[in-house]
């Protein structure tokens, strides 16, 4: 989702006009809907892992966006950030009410990025592989908020500015927290490795 500054500026101006038009006429919301529906649906499915529930949540996300469009103000972020914020809140409420387990799709391409953030330079390939295998276990050890930051940063590829807007933090805070989580994950992997070695 990360875009260059120029792309942001262009897309922002275009979207700003589209949003202004949609505020006056709901039917003008269609371009925004068609542009981001797939993205929001995909994001929600990877959390919910159910086709129909994902469709319901996605529809509700766009309905809420449309109903509250008058409150939207362009802040230099794409309209998608606002949709993501609504989708995150809706899915969180859904998990809280139904007490269902949330899911996380470990996209192989995205997982390697996460893994690279965690490993130190100089570690050999065998250890890298070990770390990668232990990743699911480490992710399960994270809290809901921590997992959300990791998910948005590495699996949805959002900028810290966008993450901050979605989870209602400052950009600096989002950055700091993400790095702390990565350190924590690394420590968890290493401590687990030490325990395995001791047993062995």
């Amino acid at each position, binding site marked *: 989702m990360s875009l260059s500054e120029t792309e942001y500026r262009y897309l922002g101006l275009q979207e700003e006009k589209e949003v202004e038009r949609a505020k006056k006429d709901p039917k003008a919301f269609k371009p925004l*809907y068609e542009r981001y529906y*797939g993205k929001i649906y995909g994001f929600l499915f990877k959390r919910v892992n159910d086709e129909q529930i*994902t469709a319901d949540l996605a529809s509700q996300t766009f*309905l809420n966006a449309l109903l509250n469009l008058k409150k939207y103000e362009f802040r230099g972020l794409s309209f998608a950030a606002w949709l993501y914020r609504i989708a995150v809140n809706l899915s969180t409420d859904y998990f809280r009410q139904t007490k269902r387990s949330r899911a996380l*799709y470990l996209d192989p391409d995205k997982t390697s990025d996460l893994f690279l953030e965690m490993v130190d330079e100089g570690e050999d390939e065998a250890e890298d592989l070990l770390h990668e295998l232990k990743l699911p276990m480490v992710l399960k*050890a994270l*809290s*809901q908020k921590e*997992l959300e930051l990791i998910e948005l940063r590495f699996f949805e590829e959002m900028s810290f500015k966008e993450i901050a807007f979605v989870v209602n933090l400052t950009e600096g805070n989002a950055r700091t927290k993400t790095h702390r989580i990565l350190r924590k994950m690394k420590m968890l992997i290493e401590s687990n490795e030490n325990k395995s070695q001791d047993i062995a």
Partner: protein
Amino acid sequence: MKTSLKILHKVPDLEELAAKHQNFDALMDAHADENIRKRKKLYKASSFAMVILATAFLSWLYWGYEPQLTEPVESQLEMSGQPKEQMIPAEKKEQEKEVSPLPEPMAKERLEPAEKEVTERETVVARQKPENKEKKSEEEEIASPQVTIKEKITADAEPVDGLESLYRYLYKEIELPDSLLGADSRLFLEIEFMIGAEGEISEVSFNKELPVVLEKKLRKVFVEMPAWKPALEKGECVESYMNLPITFQKKSDKQ
């Protein structure tokens, strides 16, 4: 705190699924339905608010509004036995000045000629008040914390047909048994009654305990007496009370 997490290593074709469920028309319908629902909710809320406001307003009108009441003050009556000052109904019990003394026998001389046709007993009726009321200026009225009813009432209640007619009526209607008269062959009674805003008479009461039958008779006489013009306060008809001291006296045998 650990998250209950299910790790997915594979997902279906999300783009295909998204395309399957993407429906802008359904979104428009849902949006319209939601707007209708909000409007209905707003209408219900505003109706409820209007009901609350109306109830509060009516309650304020009924319970909170207090009409201005004047303090009743009883002016001094003359020795000749003039009727006591008219008082405001709600405040009639608060009498600041003394009750006038009994009417003097000499008041008889002032009776109208028609009343000279007496039977066994004479009735001395309270006289009309002298017309030398002190009218305070407005400034005095404001300065003085106790404004008299006299000053507030611009015109006293009076019988429609005049006092003469009233005397004749009372003379004709009231008969007292001798047993009620005192050693001096007299009976002093104070009769208090209310003159309504339309001149109707009610709430007749006596300062003495009388035999039930007589009290009933006297009450009837007063209620049915000729109509009164109600008192006027700033141009408006108001209720007022009249206190009528009456001395019943056995007629001398001279006449």
